[in-house]
């Protein structure tokens, strides 16, 4: 990863004249640090999958594939190296002292060692060293905070509004008029051509949640009555895994988020499909399911674009079958799992806010068949 990259966020090409000491240090330690970390973490290689591109389930923050995760990684490795050096030095001092000055035998009990009360020079020395290290860290930190938080988005950056619910994610593309849930599609950016960052507005409908996809960006909380903002600029395609990172109640563990980064052409295809209104099945099980769906209280909570189903308490179902998972990541979205969910969501996700609707077996079958047509 070369430092020569063009970014919309530092105002054009990176051609600053002055020698940037922190960048130099960071660059030098990064190679070594990455090697050590690669060995420590030894994460399994990403697996290939058919629908979501490369699956990246191991959300290793030391393998960032997007800004600002890369910028965080840079300062993280620098800090890791500094702390590792301190650790080695102080541990060596401790081991040396413990070994060298151990009681060697009963003869040591006869006489007390020389009583030293302190030394101004030594104490001054070990006050100054931490101050210097702290000073360096303060500079690195302040700089990275500013770079990430105050980054300017280009006018035409893709905008997403992400709303946290107990325990799922509502996804809006305000400029594209798309509403979906639990999976975000974004185009991949590029280091050489025109960058395509995505700006994400974070809100919450109930309690505090937190957006965290480690390979793309650090956490930003989703706080009710507060509008937060973060951004990502991924450089690799694939399906990235994230979790809700702020404890939000019973099913906090199963509030999973996937970010699907695609080539711009694939992203455009996905957008086009999402904008197409869903058809109404006219025959067979699916048609019966359509009637059952709208005849039951499903529509109080769920939304299907262009129909009377305009509920806002549950995830949008307009293009349900384009998603990889069900229940915000609790299970893969297969017809069997979908049927289980429709019959009793509590059996898959205990405590989730969708109740067991006590549907008849025939209704379960028909509604499942209808839902399978939403793609």
């Amino acid at each position, binding site marked *: 990863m070369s430092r020569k990259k063009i970014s919309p966020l530092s105002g054009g090409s990176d051609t600053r004249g002055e020698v940037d000491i922190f960048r130099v240090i960071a660059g030098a330690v990064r190679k070594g640090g990455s090697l050590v970390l690669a060995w420590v973490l030894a994460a399994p290689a990403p697996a290939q999958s058919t629908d979501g591109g490369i699956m990246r*389930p191991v959300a*290793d923050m030391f393998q960032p594939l997007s800004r600002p995760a890369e910028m965080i990684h840079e300062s993280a490795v620098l*800090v890791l190296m500094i702390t590792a050096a301190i650790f080695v030095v102080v541990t060596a*001092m401790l081991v040396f002292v413990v070994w060298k000055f151990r009681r060697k035998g009963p003869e040591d009990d006869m006489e007390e060692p020389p009583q030293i009360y302190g*030394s101004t020079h030594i104490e001054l020395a070990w006050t100054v060293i931490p101050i210097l290290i702290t000073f360096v860290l303060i500079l690195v*930190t302040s700089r990275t905070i500013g770079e*990430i938080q*105050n980054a300017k988005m280009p006018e035409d950056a893709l905008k997403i509004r992400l709303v946290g619910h107990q325990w799922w994610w509502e996804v809006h593309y305000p400029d594209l008029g798309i509403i979906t849930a639990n999976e975000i599609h974004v185009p991949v950016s590029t280091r050489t051509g025109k960058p395509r960052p995505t700006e994400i507005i974070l809100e919450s409908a109930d309690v505090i949640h937190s957006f965290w996809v480690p390979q793309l960006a650090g956490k930003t909380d989703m706080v009710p009555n507060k509008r937060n903002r973060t951004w990502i600029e991924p450089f690799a395609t694939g399906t990235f895994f994230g979790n809700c*990172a702020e404890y939000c109640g019973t099913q906090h563990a199963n509030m999973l988020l996937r970010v699907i980064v695609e080539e711009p052409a694939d992203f455009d295809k996905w957008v086009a499909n999402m904008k197409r209104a869903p058809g109404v099945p006219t025959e067979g099980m699916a048609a019966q399911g359509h009637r059952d769906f709208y005849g039951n209280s499903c529509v109080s909570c769920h939304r299907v674009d262009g129909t009377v189903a305009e509920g806002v308490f549950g995830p949008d179902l307009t293009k349900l079958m384009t998603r990889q998972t069900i229940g915000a990541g609790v299970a893969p979205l297969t017809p069997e799992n979908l049927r289980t969910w429709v019959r009793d969501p509590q059996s898959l996700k205990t405590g989730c806010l969708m109740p067991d609707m006590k549907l008849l077996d025939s209704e379960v079958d028909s509604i499942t068949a209808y839902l399978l047509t939403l793609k």
Partner: protein
Amino acid sequence: MNPDTFDPNFKIPAPERIGDERGSLTRLVQEMVFTVDHKRLGLMYIGSGLLFFVIAGIMAAMIRIQLAVPRNDFLEPDVFNRLFTMHGTAMVFLVGMPIIFGFANYLVPLMIGARDMAFPRLNAFGFWVFFFSGLLLYFSYLGAPGLYAAGSAPDVGWFAYSPLTAKAFSRGHSTDYWTLSLLMGGIGSLVTSINIIVTTLCLRCKGMILGRMPLFVWLFLVVAFLVIIAIPPLSACQIMLILDRYFGAKFFDTQAGGSAVLWQHFFWIFGHPEVYILILPGFAIASEVIPVFSRKPIFGYPVMVAASVMIAFISLGVWAHHMFSVGMTSIGNTFFAISTLLVAIPTGIKIFNWIGTMYGGKLRFELPMLFCIGFLFQFLIAGLTGVMLAIAPFDWQLTDSYFVVAHFHYVLIGGLLFTIFAGIYYWYPKALGKMPDFRLGLCHFILFTVGFHITFFPQHIAGFLGMPRRIYTYDTGRGWDAWNLISTIGVIFQAAGILFFVVNLIYSYIWGKKAGDDPWDAWSLEWSTTSPPPAYNFETIPEVRSRRPLWDLKHPDDPDWKYE
């Protein structure tokens, strides 16, 4: 035990009723309930703290069993959420706080040459308020059934972020048990801390100027000041929460313009000093144990005092580093990152001074010293991971992940609990008159240290791999399986270590060697009286001329006061 009316010829009156004989169970209970003696209250604090420690430890073991393998169904999600809430709350408020207050109660009067705390009855009040606040918290398991599926123990996490605690999201009464218990416990902590401050400032024996107090007393003075400044914000939080839940107030009601972030600010204004309230007593114990077993005075006493005061002072201005991800401005984030990094300076000085104390000494590896060396090593790691967390951008990745879980367990177990063990082994002979058994203690040390690292080191890596904290389950394939399994295996070693510890406490009390007044050849005043000390502590109130009065006594040819 009013020090004014102490009469050395006073005899405890003979028992009047059957069942009142000394040593019988009813007599013991009676003595515990009515006692105002600082030593007995100190032991009661430590004893009940250890009791809650075992309970909260079993809860932690259940948490680890659930997380041992992916998609485990050992626990229901709600049960798991209650467990980590109760585990955290109990470990901070019912284990950490009472044990440190126990040490302060037992030792501060002895170390400054006083006959008791300044307000003995207030002291007893503080203990009982704490004890019943603990019972109240645990009673929630029985007493808060609440609505269907919304009852039983609190499940909002130990820092209980609003609005998860609002009536709408936390039905039933579980959160109220949590709130009232903390409010009550806070009162206990406040009165005890005021008592410590008054005792330290007003009851010192002749010659015990502030600059000659043992570092232990100094650190507890600092801790007590931190408590009286930091606990009121917590109490205010709880009062606001009660008003919100029962009187329709809007403090944290986000629908009515209230702010969810305000709770976090108020809570962490308490919460971060609380971390130092818990770790400074660890420093206090290490600062007593390390010199004695190195056979040297503490290196740089004035600097150690200054560093402690500085840590306490800075700790009041760093709270929002728990909130880097909440969406503060870049200026706010930078400010709190800087103030947090500044804590590293006095903390580093302290570690260097402890190593400086050992340098040139003749180290005796008795049990307290072993635990203190473990403390130094582990606290070093905890401090360095703390530095990583202080780097706000890095914290955006690390916060609320298992890395944080590992970090604060290194602080609270590797730092505080290890020094508590050191302190218990160090003062056991003083309090009970018997020596703790070395072999059992060594087994405890080895098993617990190994188990501690096996359990908590892998959690750093799970955090690096994106595992958030407080999840009751996870999918396989995300790189977390192995680290979690290793982590759970470590629990077995820790539990075995604790078993040896408990056995040692009982075994040594019954069969241990007699300790004598001063088994460790130490230098502070508590070792000048008998083991265990009499109710009046000292036959004659001592007079000191240096920081190490017993050194002066043992080395009349080369006393300390010549050099001060």
